[in-house]
């Protein structure tokens, strides 16, 4: 028999998270600080709207780009929260989560051999999606001493005449790093000077602490060069609804929409109706959840630092990224030992790129009570291993 598989697909490594997930699920009564999704249930008024849409028999496809009223609400939301202007008719389309939009943007913009700069550690899908789109991923390693922010010098060191896109994954999963307006200024200048484009994954934009998220698309000259990706998963605790969106210049969105049209058809209809309710009446829920995360964040950082772990203060998402180099173990060894000795799952930093070596991703999408019992296990583990 001939080899049924595509060489391109075979050479892509499965996600490091997946591998760790398999180990964890073998383990009985393990507790976890390993998730990348909110612990809150979707607010009831949003769920209720989803249920109501099913009761009303809204079980048909929507148009490819999504419900008109949802696109209009997205447009209003982006203007009110981030000062971004997108025409709901042609500059916005609704996707099956932010992930679909990442894939779509890369496939719509890349030709074979085009280079995409990806700052790591970062979410797991950018690099394989670039490969799937026949692009060439170029990794930039974010540094702890820069608070895991992307710096202009780092871009200068890797840019070539083949570079086409920079992926901007901020607020960042797994580090929790954010890019402020000042941080973004030099990046925006660089992009314009080198005639590049940006795919800005802003899925955690509602989860910043102490300052509001700033989108790189809001800089002069950047709207034309940016695809903004956002969604409902993190801000409204709607991961399982699978709903996101992409916004950008019509010329790019038109092409992304073509991929969406043929591969997906449309995002789930009930989810879209629920999302309309989320955008109309969910600002209070978002603020409440953000406040809760912020308290857990402070609680967790203090506890980890009190134990003597080196831990930079993250101002976004719901992760902390403590360093564990002094224990003489790799991230993976540390995480596996923590799991087998203390039955606590955290994700090794290397799951988000090889430069995550020496770090762990700890999620605070957990109640304070859960965090406390997990912290006891970490403390026990650390004492044992630093002796």
């Amino acid at each position, binding site marked *: 028999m001939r080899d049924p598989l595509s060489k391109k697909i075979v050479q892509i490594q499965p*996600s490091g*998270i997946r591998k*760790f*997930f398999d180990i*964890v*699920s073998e383990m009985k009564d*393990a507790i*976890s600080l*390993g*998730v*990348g*999704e909110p*612990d809150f*249930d979707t607010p009831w008024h949003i769920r209720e709207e989803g249920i109501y849409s099913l009761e009303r028999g809204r079980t048909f496809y929507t148009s490819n780009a999504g419900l008109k009223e949802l696109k209009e609400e997205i447009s209003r939301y982006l203007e009110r929260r981030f000062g971004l202007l997108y025409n709901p008719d042609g500059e916005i389309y609704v996707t099956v989560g932010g992930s679909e939009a990442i894939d779509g943007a890369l496939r719509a913009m890349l030709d074979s051999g085009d280079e995409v700069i990806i700052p790591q550690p970062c*979410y*797991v*899908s950018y690099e394989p999606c670039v490969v799937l789109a026949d692009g060439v991923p170029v990794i930039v390693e974010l540094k702890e001493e820069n608070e895991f922010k992307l710096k202009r010098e780092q871009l200068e060191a890797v840019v070539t005449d083949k570079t086409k896109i920079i992926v901007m994954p901020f607020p960042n*999963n797994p580090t929790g790093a954010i890019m402020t307006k000042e941080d973004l200024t030099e990046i925006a200048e660089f992009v314009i000077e080198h005639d590049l484009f940006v795919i800005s994954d802003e899925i955690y934009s509602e989860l910043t602490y102490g300052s509001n998220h700033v989108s790189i698309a809001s800089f002069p000259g950047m709207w034309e060069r940016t695809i903004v990706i956002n969604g409902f998963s993190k801000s409204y605790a709607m991961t399982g609804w699978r709903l996101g969106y992409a916004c950008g210049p019509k010329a790019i969105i038109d092409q992304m929409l073509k991929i969406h049209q043929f591969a997906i058809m449309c995002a789930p209809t009930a989810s879209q109706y629920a999302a309309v309710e989320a955008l109309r009446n969910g600002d209070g829920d978002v603020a409440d959840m953000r*406040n809760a995360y912020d*308290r*857990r964040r*402070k*609680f967790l950082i*203090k*506890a980890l630092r009190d134990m003597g772990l080196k831990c930079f203060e993250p101002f976004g998402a719901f992760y902390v990224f403590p360093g564990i180099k002094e224990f003489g173990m790799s991230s993976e060894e540390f995480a596996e030992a923590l799991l087998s000795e203390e039955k606590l*799952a955290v*994700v090794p930093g290397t*799951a988000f790129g090889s430069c995550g070596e020496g770090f762990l991703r700890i999620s605070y999408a957990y109640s*304070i009570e859960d965090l*406390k019992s997990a912290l006891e296990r970490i403390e026990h583990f650390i004492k044992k291993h630093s002796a």
Partner: protein
Amino acid sequence: MNKEVIDKGILDIIGKNSRFSSEDLAAMLETDKETIETEIRAMEDDKIICGYPALINWDKTDHERVTALIEVNVTPQRDMGFNKVAERIYKFEEVESVYLMSGDFDLTVIIQGKSMKEVARFVSEKLSTLEYVNSTATYFVMKKYKEHGITLEEEHDGRERMLVTP
């Protein structure tokens, strides 16, 4: 962080769960233990924080408890309005809550008793015999679903969140 933000933070947190230690509250609100304790004491003195009762689902115990909601129509007292009447009612220890209402009746009185008989006796002998009480209507609670924002019977079908996700 300023006092107002800390106070609001304390109230938000202990309004849901009053069992956190001062150290925990201090960590969550990025301040120190002493500040937390001073602020809590001040809010207790000001009667902003009025108590720390636990929310108990008595139905799950062997001890019977009956709750009734009573609509009460009263004649307000000269110079004292409804307050004096309310006080005469809320001083009874069986009385759990008393609210002055807008609408068709004046006071909502919530009673906790050991049995229906005990509640009935309270209404007929104590409450309706007060001279300024004109009429009462008593409703017994058959089941409590949610109180103080907490669902008593957890209807959640287990936490099915995966242990590790990207």
